[in-house]
Structures are given as structure tokens and as C-alpha cells.
């Protein structure tokens, strides 16, 4: 066997498994998108129902500021498919209560980052991580007892660190003022709560608005 014959299989393997080779190189393309510099263009406001339906119900108001956006194009059997990926800075302010009792009312705010993928049909999938969160409960008439003393508490309630994670789907409406709708499953942790932490699950259904859009 000549040296050439000995090297051929090795070269073949190298070529075959080189990720940058031939067809594979075309499989994924990534291109950053130009983003408008206008604040209102890049900002969407959102309003949503937020709650567990049976117990807590409330309203969530928020805003998302588009930070980065790029397209990823992949070659699939049925042709090229381009999805838009976005990173958005996210902030929320919400109110929740159990209308049946007065024992589970609170205001919350949280801030973080959202990753969202949108396909060509406008269907969206997003993950929203809000590591900066605060929940303030509001209690009805409350009396504090300390030894023999008892005092009525002004604005009773407690503050909790409340980071949250939401995973959801949505639909984009390009060029419209009501620029999309979404449905999220939200998980929030209130801590320190009692002698540990309290996990809270909520559903969110709402709409996004971009007031710079024409229609």
C-alpha cells in the first residue's frame, strides 16, 4: 500500500466529519438584523390576565425593549426555514388577589431578560427570566402582639424577594398596533416565606402593543 493509499481513508474521514464542510456549512446561517434606533419602535407594552383562575386573579402590565435580534436560517428537507430570535429587556408590574377572601392579595414587580423565537408564520416561543423580583402582600386588618402590647398595623403585609420564570407561546401580528398575543406559564418563588420559600404557579394570557405601528 502506498502512502497515498494509506492517507486516503484518513482524509475522507476528516472531510466527512468536518462541521464546516460542504452541505453542512449551508445548514445554519445566522445574520444580525438592523434594529430601529427609535425607543418606541423597539418597545412593546403588554397587558395580561395573570392568575391561577380558581384562586388568584389579577392583572399584569409590562414593557419589553428589544435589545438584540438576529435571523437563523436552516436548510431542512422541505426547504430553508428562517426564524427570528430576539433578546428583550423585560419589566412587569402586577396585582393579584383572591376575590373570595382577603388573605392572598399582593402587588409585584420583576425585571429580567426574555428570549423569543418567531417563525415565518408569526408563531412565537419565549422564555422569560426575571431574577429581580419583589412581591408585597397586602393583608386585611392586622394586629401585632408583642408581650402584653397589641397594636393595629398600618398598611399590613410583607415584602418578599420574588424571582420568576415564564415559558410561553404567542402569535405575532406584524405591523399592527396590537402587535401580538401570548400565553405563559409562570413560576415565581417567594422567599423567605414562613420557614422556607413558597413556589407559586400562574397562567398569563395577554396582548402586546407597539404604539409606533400604523394599524
Amino acid at each position, binding site marked *: 500500500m502506498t502512502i497515498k493509499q494509506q492517507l486516503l481513508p484518513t482524509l475522507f474521514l476528516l472531510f466527512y466529519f468536518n462541521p464546516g464542510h460542504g452541505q453542512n456549512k449551508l445548514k445554519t446561517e445566522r445574520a444580525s438584523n438592523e434594529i430601529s434606533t427609535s425607543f418606541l419602535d423597539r418597545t412593546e407594552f403588554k397587558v395580561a390576565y395573570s392568575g391561577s383562575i*380558581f384562586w388568584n386573579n389579577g392583572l399584569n402590565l409590562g414593557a419589553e425593549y428589544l435589545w438584540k435580534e438576529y435571523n437563523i436560517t436552516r436548510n431542512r428537507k422541505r426547504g430553508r426555514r428562517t426564524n427570528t430570535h430576539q433578546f428583550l429587556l423585560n419589566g412587569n408590574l402586577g396585582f393579584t*388577589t383572591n376575590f373570595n377572601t382577603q388573605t392572598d392579595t399582593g402587588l409585584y414587580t420583576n425585571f429580567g431578560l426574555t428570549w423569543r423565537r418567531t417563525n415565518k408564520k408569526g408563531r412565537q416561543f419565549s422564555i422569560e427570566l426575571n431574577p429581580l423580583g419583589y412581591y408585597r402582600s397586602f393583608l386585611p386588618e392586622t394586629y401585632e402582639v408583642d408581650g402584653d402590647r397589641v397594636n393595629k398595623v398600618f398598611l*399590613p403585609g*410583607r415584602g418578599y424577594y420574588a424571582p420568576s420564570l415564564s415559558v410561553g407561546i404567542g402569535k405575532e401580528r406584524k405591523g399592527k398596533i396590537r402587535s401580538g398575543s401570548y400565553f405563559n406559564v409562570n413560576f415565581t418563588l417567594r422567599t423567605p416565606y414562613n420557614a422556607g420559600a413558597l413556589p407559586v404557579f400562574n397562567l398569563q394570557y395577554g396582548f402586546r402593543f407597539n404604539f409606533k405601528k400604523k394599524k
Partner: protein
Amino acid sequence: MQKILAHASKLILVVLTTVSLFSCSKEEDLSNLDDTLFVRHKNADMPAYIMGNATEKVFLITLHGGPGDLGLGFRGTAFSEIERHYAVVYFDQRGSGMSQGSYSENELSLDIMAEDVLALVTVMKRKYGYDSRFFLLGHSWGGTLGTATLLKDQSDFKGWIEIDGANSPARLYDQYIETFTTTANTQIALGNSVDFWESVLDFVSEIDPVSNKDGFLELNNKAFDLEKRLEEDGFLNSPEEGDNIIYNYNILTAIWNSGQIAYILVDEQCIFQTTDFSGRLSEITIPSLFISGEYDMIVPKISAEIAFENIGSDIKELIIYERSGHAPLASEPQRFAEDVLRFMDRNK
């Protein structure tokens, strides 16, 4: 844009108005109270739901079981009847139901929970007047907590009502073994569910005779099976469903809280192996009523009998409900309401 802003502001206005309407305090009608207030004590905020007829300012403070059950879990036929005559205070204990707060595990103890109950009395007096009168009622674990409370300070209470109460839980281990064996032998002799009761005898024979936490939990779990079998064989009435309280609690929160407090008190602090008030029951001198189900397997009736013998009260009564297990208030609600009301009428 303006149109949308106008719509949005209308929506927010409607929501805020609705919320403020719901949060407005109700006009107090003492003959039909429906009030919720919170007691803040040692870093915990605990709700007390006060319902019923408070025209005489007689309040029945209830202590739920568990630890970790729900204060409003008492509500049903029996307590509706009691509420027609007196006000009932349903209390979510520290770490239970919709209680909240921020404290360390060291601040979760029977001693502090007993102080919480006394703090509740202090708040009730401040809210409804210092001429208010109180009865204390504890079911199951509430019997442990109630006994601990009374041993701390019984001066504010007109009477103590213990329903299937675990006043000395450290003794439950031996009581389980004895009760399971006796009940199994009786049922086998009667020819009822013989295979099941023989398996109970096998189960008991395999349990470590020396009290320990794991053995206790096994016995406690088994007790529910035994009661279920006795119910199926027609020895006790099926407990009635209580009031629908599912919307009064965030059930996910309540379940989580219940798991947390049970883990800390039962698993970590081994409270059911270390608490025994039997030697101090003579210190309780207020009128006392003990109610137990004949077929209570979870806190066997022997516990009520020992408490009745050893309590220091001159006025004391022991009633065994023949058609009940661990929940006479749900198995024989009418009789239960009558007995409790009679006791309160006499001692208020």
C-alpha cells in the same frame, strides 16, 4: 393610539373599582359576623376567620389538626349550628393555610405556636372588647396545641373542648399497637374482613415495639386504612363532606405550607415522639369536655380516657361517639353540635 389609551385607562379603572369594592371592610353585624383579621406574632401573620353569632361575645376558638391542616376545615353541619348560637374563630396556625411570615425553623415550635394562640386571644379582646369570653377547642393535633396553650395560660378560657385530641402524642405509639391488636382480634372474632384484620396483626407484629419516628409514621398511616375498613364494614358513619372551602384557600399554597410545617415539626423535631403532657394535665382546671370516636384509630379513644382521668378540672365530661372514628364532628354532626352547645351554655 388615543383610542387604545382611553380603553386601557377604562379597563384599569374598572379593575381598581372592583378591587376596592371587594376590599372594603364589611359593616359589622355581631349577630352574623363574617370577619377576617390577621394576628402578627413573632414574625408570622396568621389569619383568623370569625363567623357566627357574637351578640353574647362568646367566642369558640378552634385549633385545627395536622399539623398543617386548614382552619376553615371545621366548617360543615355541626359548626353551622354552633355559629347560630356563638361566634366561632377559625384560625390558620403558624405555617398553615394562608398564614405567612418570615422566620427561622427555630421559631417554629409547639411553645411558640401556643403563644400564637394566646396572642390571638389578646387581639380578640382588643377587637371585640375585654368583656369577651372564650372557649378553646382542639381537634387531633389541635389537642396537643390546645393543651400546650392551656398549660401556658388558661385564665382567659371558660372551657376546653378536646375532640380526638392527641394531648400526649408520645404515648400514641403504644396506644396504636394496643388498639390495632384489640380491634383486629374483635373484628376477626366477629368474622368481618378476616384477611384484612389478620394482615393488620402481621403488620403490628413486625413493628418495632420501641417507639421511633419511622414506626410512628407507619402506624399513623395504617390507622387511616383501619378506619376506612371499619367504615366500609358499617361500624361508623361516613363523615359528611364539609363546606366547600376550596375557594377560600389557594390550595397549592396550603398544600405546600402543610408539607413544610409537617416536615419540620414531625420529621425534624420529632414532636410526636417527644411531647407528653400526661403528667401535667392536673394543672388544667377549667371545665373540660372530651369527645372521642369509639373507632378512632388515628388518636385512639384511650387518649381521651386518660386525659379525662387526669385533668385537674372539677367540671369534666367524657363522651364516646359509638358511630364515629377520628372525626365525630363530621360523622355525627348533629349530636356533636348539641354536646358542644350544651357545654358552652353551662360554662359561659
